[in-house]
């Protein structure tokens, strides 16, 4: 079976590529005929498996971890195709193993969706995990925030080496208390954190409702973080680690992306530290500064010689951060809200975002299957609306035509972003800046 399943899976992978089909089918085939394929292959990696999970920022953070580790000379396997579930990992493995099923890598860094990660870690206990955040996202899929936190806890409980936690997200930070201590075989816990001065830019779903003047409910003493994001400038950032503050230019934009860079750095430092060779700290820092956002996760393009920013929004906290990180002044603004499964079907989340920052300039164009839900939301925040068209292609064309002389920004849900990128490449020459 062993010598038969890999060639067969690779064959299916080729055929399904030719058909332009889904990336998971070959994974399904190899899973059916050789259920042990994934475990067996990943078990051969000298540094094991690192899992990245959480609600927001998995893809960009995983990309950062990979690039940081590569700066240390490590060979990294990752699920780049965005198939962030078990079958997708098996499919990605098929693309990388040789015909005898051997994977030429030191470590696997895998982005896993919270729910699928639970199945994955039951099959393959990771050596490392990085848990980013628990935010209100697609509640129609997981039910409730606390349940999502339970999923992350399960990932941490299966981790054998180091668990990296977001110190500033109470639902993630409190996972530490549920783990066995290293003395009795539990994992080491490391945190990444934020300077107090940046905390206010990161509302979590609880803080969104907490009273400005009211006492903070008995916040436990904060543990020391391995890496702290100290300051974010227009094109650079300061990080604290090893007792010093280090400044670096950053290609990434948006405070939340750069906080995820602190997360990636914490995990990469933990992995680098267990190797026999010394960590190349300068190399890590250079790689960090050079990381660009992952495809479709917020990027800056040039259209008609002026910038066009795509900002992915998928939950209230993310939308609030997006509005805060990218001031509206001087920009033409479009908002694209779809309600497909990958976007979240329930529109309630739009009512937990404040749009007062758009009041001065208004919104030029609304689009997406729920464009009128968005229009209604803006009306109740007294934000002026230009045009509304549920069809994305004509709305985008009208937006670009109407704002020829201004830089543009589009806030969009996931499937709206995919549609917009597709349309942009048709109607204009798109140059990706970062």
């Amino acid at each position, binding site marked *: 079976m062993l010598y038969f399943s890999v060639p067969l899976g690779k064959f299916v992978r080729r055929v399904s590529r030719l058909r332009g089909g889904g990336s998971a089918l070959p994974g399904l085939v190899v899973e059916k005929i050789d259920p042990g394929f994934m475990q067996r292959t990943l078990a051969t990696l000298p540094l094991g498996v690192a899992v990245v999970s959480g609600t927001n920022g998995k893809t960009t953070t995983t990309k950062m971890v990979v690039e940081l580790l590569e700066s240390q000379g490590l060979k990294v396997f990752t699920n780049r195709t965005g198939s962030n579930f078990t079958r997708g990992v098996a499919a990605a493995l098929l693309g990388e193993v040789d015909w005898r099923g051997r994977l030429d890598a030191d470590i696997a860094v895998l982005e896993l969706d919270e729910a699928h990660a639970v199945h994955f870690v039951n099959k393959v206990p990771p050596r490392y995990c990085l848990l980013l955040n628990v935010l209100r996202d697609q509640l129609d899929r997981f039910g409730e925030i606390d349940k999502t936190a339970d999923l992350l806890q399960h990932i941490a409980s299966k981790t054998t080496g180091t668990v990296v936690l977001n110190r500033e997200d109470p639902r993630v930070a409190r996972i530490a208390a549920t783990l066995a201590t290293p003395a009795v075989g539990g994992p080491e816990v490391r945190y990444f954190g934020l300077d107090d001065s940046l905390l206010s830019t990161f509302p979590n779903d609880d803080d969104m409702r907490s009273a400005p003047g009211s006492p903070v409910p008995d916040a436990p003493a904060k543990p020391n973080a391995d890496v702290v994001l100290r300051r974010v400038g227009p094109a650079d950032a300061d990080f604290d680690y090893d007792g010093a503050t280090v400044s670096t230019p950053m290609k990434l934009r948006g405070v939340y992306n750069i906080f995820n860079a602190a997360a990636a750095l914490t995990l990469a430092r933990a992995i680098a530290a267990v190797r026999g060779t010394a960590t190349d700290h300068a190399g890590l820092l250079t790689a960090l500064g050079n990381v660009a956002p992952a495809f479709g996760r917020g990027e800056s393009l040039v259209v008609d010689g002026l910038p066009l920013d795509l900002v992915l929004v998928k939950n209230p906290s993310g939308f609030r951060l997006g509005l805060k990180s990218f001031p509206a002044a001087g920009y033409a603004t479009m908002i694209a809200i779809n309600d497909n499964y990958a976007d979240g*079907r329930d529109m*309630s989340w739009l009512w937990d975002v404040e749009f007062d920052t758009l009041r001065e300039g208004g919104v030029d164009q609304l689009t997406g299957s729920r464009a*009128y*839900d968005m229009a209604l939301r803006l009306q109740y925040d007294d934000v002026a609306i230009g045009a509304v068209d549920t069809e994305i292609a004509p709305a985008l064309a009208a937006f670009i035509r109407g704002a020829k002389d201004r830089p543009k920004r589009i806030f969009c849900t996931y499937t709206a972003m995919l549609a917009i990128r597709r349309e942009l490449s048709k109607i204009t020459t798109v140059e990706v800046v970062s």
Partner: protein
Amino acid sequence: MTPETGPQHELSHGHELPPEEPAAPSKGTIRVLQLYPRDMNIYGDWGNALVLAQRLRWHGYTPELLEYNVGDDFPANVDLIVGGGGQDSGQLVIQDDLLSRETVLRELAEDGTPMLVICGLYQLFGKFFRTRTGSVIPGIGILDVETNGTDERLIGNVSVSTPEFGTVLGYENHSGQTTLGPGVEPLGTTAKGTGNNSGGGHEGARYRNIVASYLHGSLLPKNPALADFLIKTAVERKYGSFTPGTPDDRYAVLAREHAARRPR
């Protein structure tokens, strides 16, 4: 109750009303109380409070937005109450406090105060919530309804035909199934979606001027008839009569049209 510990009964969380536009003299002030906005706010419940406040303005009245959280003093002279859904942890936090407020809430309800209770507070305004494991969480019993936790999660777009408010549109996401007793009427019958329970074909509950529902989305923005019922009732109780303004409901009409076409 604990003594007063700080500024209370004011809009004091991350959300703010847009600034008031200078307009004609106010026809009166309506005090809108949000129940437990700190712990029961999971499904855009701010949207309901915002819609009530803004529509009051558009009708020519002045909204005064208050909130009541665990341990606060209960404000006097409340004209309209709105309360939302929480996850299990939020419900645990408010449970005892809500029971301690049963008397005042019952008096207000029996007196005809308009109230909107969504999801979690709908359940806790009923007699009890029995969890899947059999433990019973007592409610305040203002509504003659009982809720049983199940393993089945009812999720998706909902359309309800109601005798009072026309078609009500929203989104449900609950695993508790609610059975209505003879003391309440359903809000309406479900044309799409499940509603109160998987067998009944009805959604929500009506009792005096209470509207109880599982629907969010948020509920009031896309159902202005329901919002205006609550407002009209509050104004009539306080001032004897209600003279409506002319809110611009273009976007509400279009949002309803498009929402109604979306799949379950």
